[in-house]
């Protein structure tokens, strides 16, 4: 299988970040489905199974990303999830997935700061999809 056989679901309420990330992922070769809110993402998940998902942390709710993570994993336990956020460093809301405790309550597989370069995002996706 090559990258074009994988569908990436991305949810983000910043239209510019969404547009740019969609372009970056398409250029990397993936099929991309984009949604602009937690509600849209939930509707998407109810209908389709993506191969990997990237969720913005703060959308309608401060913890939209976590909620989506939980719902996605409940339905499709095998789909990897990346949480992307720009809030961590500024708000002192720091978390990683390094300890077992954190892995237990944050259902995400990976966590990325917004503003990462497209190659980094691509690398992360390939790692999670075992490409």
């Amino acid at each position, binding site marked *: 299988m090559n990258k074009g056989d994988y569908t990436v679901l991305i949810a983000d309420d*910043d239209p*510019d*970040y969404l547009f740019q990330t969609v372009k970056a992922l398409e250029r990397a070769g993936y099929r991309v489905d984009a949604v602009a*809110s937690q509600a849209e993402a939930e509707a998407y998940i109810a209908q389709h199974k993506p191969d990997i998902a990237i969720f913005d942390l703060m*959308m309608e709710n401060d913890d939209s990303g976590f909620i989506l993570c939980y719902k996605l994993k409940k339905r499709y336990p095998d789909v990897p999830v990346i949480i992307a956020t720009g809030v961590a460093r*500024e708000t002192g809301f720091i978390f990683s997935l390094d300890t077992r405790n954190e892995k237990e309550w944050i259902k995400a597989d990976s966590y990325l700061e917004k*503003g990462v370069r497209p190659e980094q995002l691509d690398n992360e996706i390939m790692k999670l999809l075992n490409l």
Partner: protein
Amino acid sequence: MAVLKILVVDDEPGIRSGVARILKNFKVTYPFMDEDYEFEVFEAATGEEGISMIEKDQPDIILLDNKLPGMQGVDVLEYIRNNNLNIVVVMITSYASLDVAVKATHSGATDFIPKPFTPQELKSSIENITKQLYLKRITHRLNEEGKKVRYQFLSVLSHELKAPLNAIEGYLIMMKEKQLGDRIDDYAMPIERSLRRIQGMRTLIMDLLDFTKVRLQRREDRIQPVDLAEVAADSIATVRPYAIQKEVEINLVKKSDATVMADPGDMAIIFNNLVSNAVKYNVVGGKVEITLDSTDDEVIAMFSDTGIGIRPEDMGNLFTEFVRIKRDEIKDVTGSGLGLSIVKKVIDLYKGTINVESETGKGSIFTVRLPKNKN
């Protein structure tokens, strides 16, 4: 009414009951304190008993006799120091052992009372300690709160400023790498979006400037009679281009003279924000009505719109800094999330009130009441 716990450790029952009696109805008040302090007295006859009561009752102040049957006063003092307990210790000591008391103050005791003492001596010592404790607590609390508020503000602010920068940088990189094609026209959308994000950032910075200005204080030298009808007319003129674009009609209704003693700049902040919100969150073809009225002591300004309204769950956070309500209908509306918090602060400065009634899908009415005289 606040209560401080005092533990008396002394082997003489007379001293213990004396202290309890003297402090029973004693109150410490001072003009700068927001509440009076009263005292609750616990008694221990030995050092050992004292230590177990320290653990159990967590006293704020200990009156400690040095000469005790078993363990000595200095040992209790050492226990307190070794366990880093936040307790004020006053040594009770006979004149004969004043040197011991002085030594004790070196190892952590705050004060000493020579025995026998008069009720007045005990009271004045306790009074001093209470003020000291109060100031310590209040400073600690202010420091903590100040730090927290400042930190929260700066962190959210840096996030709000960083998001547009990220977006614009992303678009510039796309152009640099010619990701969307070779012609400038291929980049119409990224350019448009970048300009929009820059505009949003400028609004934020302007609002921040307002915000810092308001935080300081009312400028007494600028207070003058201000006719709110003129302020309203200025605000309407400022928003008109945008209103025309959205086909929103704005009316000013003057029921009575609405002149208030105020800084004209402050009044402009209130009106500019509320009028522009009424247009911004309106529907195409909607209406905005500003009504000015007054009673004997206050002026009333009502801003009503036929916009999207405010959902009940969003009401609570309306005046909180950086809170922007997220709804599909207003995805494209730019704002800093500061406007209403600034308006609220200005109104507070004038000891006025702001009140909101709203129905989702029908519109909102913001009612501002300001006292006519500056006080």
